[in-house]
Each structure stands twice: as structure tokens, then as C-alpha cells.
């Protein structure tokens, strides 16, 4: 067991080292094989591990002492339970597909860049695996920062383009902000509980040691960390820019896996959150707000990847909504389904972009359905899934989230529903403008429009299938009794927090209401889908947006605001410090002392006038003074 588990991350690491060190000697094929092969390997191992967990034996293995000073003991240990197992499958499985996809997608790169790409990708898988397998917060944090590093490297993969590297830096720094909060939370845990090991802290006894304030503080800080990683308000702006990276990267990191790290982390510490109702509400509000904001922006984007990026943000918002309403299972569920269909959509868009020769503006596309059948079909499935059409995976997970929201407060439900409708709308706006109508690109582009090679289409197909059937692991209670296998599977992880949530009075809506809600939402979604389809398949909105539209197109000017409020002032401050304060105050005082001394030297010269008479006079005066002081003033 010990060996298999360590192998799961080690294989990608080995892939990273091989590809990284030998990048100048490997052929593309070999690099691709190493890259995907290692991930495939760990996928198989993950299945094995999953089976083990399913059989009910949860593995906690300790490898070596990472840090051990005094009472503080942080081992380098793995913990594989149900939650981890799920994520393992998602990461390695989807990861493998995307590796496979990349072999074709990145084929135009130079060999050593090709190898470098796979090295990064493998490193990412490695860190992501550390993140989910870590048995304590520190190991998790190692992965947490590791994935941040990899996203930095991959966003800036084409490092010759300045703006790409800028985007990469932005992503890293924004993550850093979250990471600091994460760290602080860790320190609080260490200093209050003396441990960061999950099994030691996530027990009612241990947590009861924390005061209400502490627990709220810790959970909030952790959540801030999550907002950084999972692109929530206020730290979401890096994710759309992250689309600078290669499309498969967007699919893997910025849709399927890394961005869900926040959800994983909160789900992992569900008990603690269940004890902090304040934080839960805050999470719910942030989540729904992000969902709506991102969705609204997505409505007016024309870059195909941007749309998907904002949709990702909003979907993540849904997941946080779920967490906030205590529906952890729903959140994990949605992570899974979302991984399927969002990866599918990204890869599909990648295939499109591939065909269009790098063109990403969908206004220049259109009518592609004729040219690329498989891509078209799979993409459509993806859209239907994300829109939440009944029967596809998206429906189940989203419906569960909405139900949970309703259970907390109807307002959340309504807002969530609006978000869902917007999702449906922009997705089909995207679909229609891309695939329907007539081709609007240049003739030269038109000339080599073609269906992508198998290495691209196969993953699409697989993912399409998954996004269709993926939902059936979690058929809601009110449809079929006891068919929510996922819930049952995850039960051990969330059992304790369930009892905590009872205290908070999270009640689950009755089946009848759920019927109603599900019916209502499905109906509205269908209407919206049809609307959007008709609206955009004829003529896409080519005209320049104005008013609210313009506001949306410019993403509510959030980037500009951040720039004006944070970046610019800091830079100005920096200039001020280095050119004014440092020179004139800090260093100025030091030099001032020096100047003073030499000035004093210059001033003392008058005594040394060269006049004998003056010298003697001064001596006499000194004598006089001493005598006066000695005899008349000194007692």
C-alpha cells in the first residue's frame, strides 16, 4: 500500500524529471509517451487505490518527518479516503485524456519545447496529487503552491510574449495572496491545536478546544486561500487572463482540477466549517455573487476561451454556494461533472481553434458544424450538460446545488436559478455563433478547415460520454430512492459535519418541492436555450456593445479598478521611497551626520586663527572660566 500510494505522485514526477532533463534529446513521440504514460500509470494505480477505499480500508501512510521541532511534528504523510479517491480519479483520469490530447495539440512546437510542456504538465499532476493526497495541511500546502507554480509556468509557456508572462505573474501573485491567508490559518492551527494533521484536528474534541472566534478566523483565512486558488471574488481576475496558456492547460488546470483545489480543501475540512456558520454564510454569498458576476460578464465576451473561462468562474461560484449551504456532496459532485463537461468544452474549443489556425474570436467563426462533425457533436453535448438539460450530468449536480441553496434560503435559490439561466444563454450563444450560420472567417482559413486528428477527437468522445453518464452516480433522492451512490460513498467523510449542520437547522426540502424546483428550472433553461439558439444562429451580435453591454464586455472594469487602487499606488509608493525617502531621509540622515562633522571641522577653524595673541587669549579665557567655576560656582 505504502509503495503504491507514493508511486501515484512519483510517476508524474519521474515523467517531469525525464522530460525536463532530457528535453534536448527526446523525440516528440517519446516525450509524449513519457508524459501521458506516467499519468496513465498513476491513473491505473488510482483506480487500485479507489478500489481499496471502496473496500473500506482508508490508508494513512507516513513517509518521513518533514519538520519536527519540539512539540510541532509535521510528517510527510499521505491520506487516501473517499474524498481523495474521487479526486485522484478525476485528476489522473481527465489528466491522462488531456495529456493524450496535448500530444496532438502541441505538435507544432519544437521538440524541446514539446518536452518542456509535458514536463510542466507532469509536474502539475504531481503537485495536484500531493495536494489531494496530503494527510496534513502542510503537505497539502506544498501541493497547493506547487500547482500555483505549474500554472505560472504553463500560462507563461510561450514566454516570448510579454503579456503572457504578465498574465502568468498575475496569476501567481494573486494565488500568493490567498496562500498567505492559508499559511496564517495553518499557524493559528499549529499554535492552538499543535498539529496540522487532518485526523488529529478534524475531531469534535479537538475542534471544541478552539474558541468561536478562532474557528471563524481560521475558516475565513482558509476560505480566502480558496478564493485565490479557485478564482472567487475578489481574487478571480487572474483566471480569464490565464487563458493565455495553451488550451489543454486551460482545460486541465483552469477548469478541471487546480481551480477545484479550494473546493477540495473546504470539503476536506468540512467539520471545521460546519462549526463556523458565519463563515459558511459568507462562503455562500461570495459563491453566488461570483457565479452571477462571472456569468454576466460571459454574456458579452467574444473570445471563445474567455467565455469558457468566465463560465468556469461562475461554475466554481456554484460549487462554493454548495459548500456554503453545507451541501458538500453536491459540491464534490459538481466538481466531478464540471470536470467532465468543462474539460470537454475547452478541448472542443481547442479543437476549433486548432482548426481555425489559432483564431479565438468567435465572430470570425460560424457554421463549423459542417466541417468538424465530432467536435460539433461533442461540443453540443458539453453545452447541454453545462446548461443543465435534464438527463445530462450537469442537471443532476446543479439541481442538487440549487436544492441545497433553497434549503438554506429561497433567495439563494432564485439567484442561483438566474445564474443557471445566464449560463444556458451564453453557452448557446457561444455554440450558435461558432457552429451554426455561415463561415465568417477568411478564405485562407476556410481552405484548411478540417476535423482534428484522433488524438484530439478520442478524448472529446470519452469526455462527452462521461458528461452524459457522469451524473448517474448521483441520482437525487426524489427520483430514485437510494440511487445517490456518490453520497453513500462519501458519507464517512461528511457524516460528522452532517450532525453539526443539524444544529444549524439546515433542513432538506421535501421531495415534492424538489420536483417543483427541478421542473421549473429545467423548463426555464429549455426556453432560454431555444431563445439563444434562434437569436444567434442567424446573425451573431457583431455590432459594438453599448450601455450595460459595454460594461459587461469590459468585465465591469474590475481589472482597471484593481490597477488604479492597488498596483499604481504601490508603484508610485515604490518610486517615492526609493527616490525620495531613501535618499533624503534614511540615507540623508547618515550622510547628514558626516556633513555635520566636516562642517564642524570647518567651523572650528576660527579658533586656529594662527595668531599667537589669540591663542594665548583663548588659553587665558579658559583658565579664567575654570577658576570662576572652581572657586565660586562649584561647591
Amino acid at each position, binding site marked *: 500500500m505504502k509503495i503504491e500510494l507514493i508511486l501515484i505522485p512519483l510517476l508524474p514526477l519521474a515523467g517531469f524529471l525525464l522530460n525536463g532533463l532530457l528535453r534536448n534529446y527526446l523525440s516528440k513521440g517519446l516525450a509524449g509517451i513519457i508524459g501521458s504514460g506516467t499519468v496513465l500509470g498513476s491513473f491505473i494505480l488510482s483506480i487500485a487505490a479507489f478500489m481499496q477505499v471502496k473496500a473500506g480500508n482508508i490508508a494513512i501512510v507516513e513517509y518521513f518527518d518533514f519538520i519536527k521541532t519540539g512539540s510541532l511534528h509535521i510528517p510527510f504523510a499521505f491520506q487516501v479516503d473517499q474524498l481523495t479517491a474521487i479526486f485522484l480519479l478525476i485528476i489522473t483520469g481527465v489528466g491522462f485524456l488531456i495529456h493524450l490530447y496535448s500530444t496532438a495539440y502541441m505538435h507544432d512546437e519544437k521538440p524541446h519545447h514539446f518536452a518542456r510542456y509535458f514536463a510542466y504538465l507532469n509536474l502539475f499532476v504531481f503537485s495536484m496529487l500531493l495536494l489531494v493526497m496530503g494527510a496534513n495541511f502542510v503537505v497539502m500546502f506544498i501541493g497547493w503552491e506547487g500547482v500555483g507554480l505549474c500554472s505560472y509556468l504553463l500560462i507563461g509557456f510561450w514566454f516570448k510574449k510579454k503579456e503572457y508572462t504578465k498574465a502568468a505573474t498575475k496569476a501567481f501573485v494573486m494565488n500568493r495572496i490567498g496562500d498567505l491567508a492559508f499559511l496564517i490559518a495553518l499557524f493559528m492551527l499549529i499554535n492552538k491545536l499543535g498539529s496540522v494533521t487532518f485526523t488529529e484536528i478534524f475531531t469534535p474534541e479537538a475542534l471544541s478546544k478552539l474558541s468561536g472566534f478562532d474557528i471563524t478566523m481560521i475558516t475565513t483565512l482558509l476560505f480566502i486561500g480558496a478564493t485565490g486558488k479557485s478564482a472567487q471574488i475578489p481574487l478571480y481576475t487572474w483566471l480569464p487572463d490565464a487563458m493565455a496558456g495553451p488550451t489543454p492547460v486551460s482545460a486541465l488546470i483552469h477548469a478541471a482540477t487546480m481551480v477545484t483545489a479550494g473546493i477540495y480543501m473546504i470539503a476536506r475540512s468540512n467539520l471545521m466549517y460546519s462549526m463556523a456558520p458565519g463563515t459558511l454564510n459568507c462562503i455562500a454569498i461570495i459563491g453566488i455573487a461570483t457565479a452571477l458576476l462571472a456569468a454576466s460578464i460571459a454574456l458579452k465576451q467574444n473570445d471563445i476561451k474567455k467565455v469558457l473561462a468566465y463560465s468556469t468562474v461562475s461554475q466554481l461560484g456554484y460549487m462554493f454556494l454548495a459548500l456554503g449551504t453545507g451541501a458538500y456532496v453536491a459540491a464534490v459532485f459538481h466538481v466531478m461533472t464540471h470536470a467532465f463537461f468543462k474539460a470537454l468544452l475547452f478541448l472542443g474549443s481547442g479543437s476549433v481553434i486548432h482548426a481555425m489556425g489559432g483564431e479565438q474570436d468567435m465572430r470570425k467563426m460560424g457554421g463549423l458544424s459542417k466541417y468538424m462533425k465530432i467536435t460539433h457533436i461533442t461540443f453540443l453535448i458539453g453545452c447541454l450538460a453545462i446548461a443543465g438539460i435534464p438527463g445530462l450530468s450537469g442537471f443532476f449536480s446543479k439541481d442538487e446545488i440549487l436544492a441545497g441553496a433553497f434549503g438554506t434560503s429561497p433567495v439563494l435559490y432564485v439567484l442561483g436559478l438566474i445564474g443557471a439561466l445566464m449560463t444556458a444563454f451564453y453557452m448557446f450563444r457561444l455554440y450558435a455563433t461558432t457552429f451554426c450560420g455561415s463561415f465568417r472567417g477568411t478564405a485562407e482559413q476556410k481552405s484548411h478547415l478540417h476535423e482534428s486528428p484522433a488524438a484530439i477527437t478520442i478524448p472529446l468522445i470519452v469526455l462527452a460520454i462521461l458528461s452524459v453518464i457522469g451524473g448517474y452516480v448521483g441520482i437525487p433522492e426524489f427520483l430514485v430512492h437510494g440511487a445517490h451512490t456518490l453520497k453513500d460513498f462519501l458519507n464517512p467523510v461528511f457524516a460528522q459535519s452532517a450532525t453539526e449542520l443539524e444544529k444549524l437547522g439546515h433542513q432538506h426540502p421535501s421531495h415534492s418541492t424538489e420536483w417543483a424546483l427541478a421542473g421549473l428550472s429545467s423548463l426555464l433553461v429549455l426556453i432560454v436555450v431555444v431563445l439563444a439558439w434562434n437569436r444567434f444562429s442567424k446573425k451573431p451580435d457583431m455590432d459594438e456593445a453599448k450601455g450595460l453591454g459595454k460594461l459587461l464586455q469590459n468585465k465591469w472594469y474590475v481589472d482597471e479598478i484593481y490597477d488604479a487602487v492597488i498596483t499604481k499606488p504601490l508603484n508610485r509608493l515604490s518610486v517615492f521611497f526609493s527616490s525620495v525617502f531613501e535618499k533624503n531621509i534614511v540615507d540623508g540622515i547618515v550622510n547628514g551626520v558626516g556633513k555635520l562633522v566636516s562642517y564642524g571641522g570647518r567651523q572650528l577653524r576660527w579658533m586656529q586663527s594662527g595668531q599667537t595673541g589669540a591663542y594665548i*587669549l583663548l588659553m587665558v*579665557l579658559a583658565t*579664567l572660566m575654570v577658576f*570662576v567655576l572652581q*572657586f*565660586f560656582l562649584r561647591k
Partner: protein
Amino acid sequence: MSITQILFWILTVAVLFSAIMVISSKNPVHSVLWLVAAFFFISGHYILLNAQFLAIVNIIVYAGAIMVLFLFVIMLMNLNKSTEPLKNRSLQIIGILSGGCLLLVLVAALRNTEISENTALVNTGDAGLIKTLGRELFTNFVVPFEISSILFLSAMVGAVVMGKKD
């Protein structure tokens, strides 16, 4: 008021007057002469204190030798006319003032000291007689006496080094 007291007062006034004349007279030659006078009066005080030996030495060495030396030099440089332009007034004033203050302070400080009621024995006592001093000088004080020979040697060498044209 005994004769010695009268003599004392006369001598004192004379000394002070000639001393002041030394520093105030424009013509260097005059100040030399006034200084000689001052030395004579001081010798008078010595005699009053019954220190004949010192009185004689003072007249011979100081008034005789040294002052004549001064006179020679001044003549040699024919500074006999008052060549000295006035030092600027302010410095002079300051000099005089500070000197006065010094005097004031010292006198005020030393007016009533542990010895203030003591007296100096006048016109008696054999301490100052050549006999006594001579014996002392060549018995107990022979060491400093010899040492002063080194002083003279060096002064001599110095005078040669300085004075000789090369």
C-alpha cells in the same frame, strides 16, 4: 607705620608703575628700561625680605646681563623708534579686561586661604644669605645644579645652531 612698611609701599607702587609702563610705552627701548627699573625695585623687595644673594643676582643677571642682551637686540634691529602699529583696539580691550578679571578672580580666591594670616618675615633671618644658600646649593642641590648644566649646554648649542650664518 615702621620704615620697612613705608619702604614696602613705595617699592610696591614703583614696581607696579614701572611694570605698567613696560607694557604701555610705545618705544621698545623705553619698555626695556622700564623693565630694568622694575627689576631694580623687585631687588629692593628682596633686600627688604633679607634675601641679599637673590637681590644681587637679580640685578647682575637680569638687569645686567639679560636686559642688556635685549637692548642689544633691539638696537641691532633699530626698533628704537616706536615702529609698532597699534594692535586693533578690540583685542587690546579684551586682553586688558581678561587680564583684569584674572587678577580679580585670583585675588578673590586667594585672599583668605589657609595661610592668609601668616606673615613674611622682613629684614631678619639668614635664609637668604650667600653662605647658607651656597652650602645648600653645592651639597643638597648639587643634582639640579648639574642638571641645569645640561640645560645650558643645550641652550648654547641651540644658540649656535640658530645664530650662526650658514
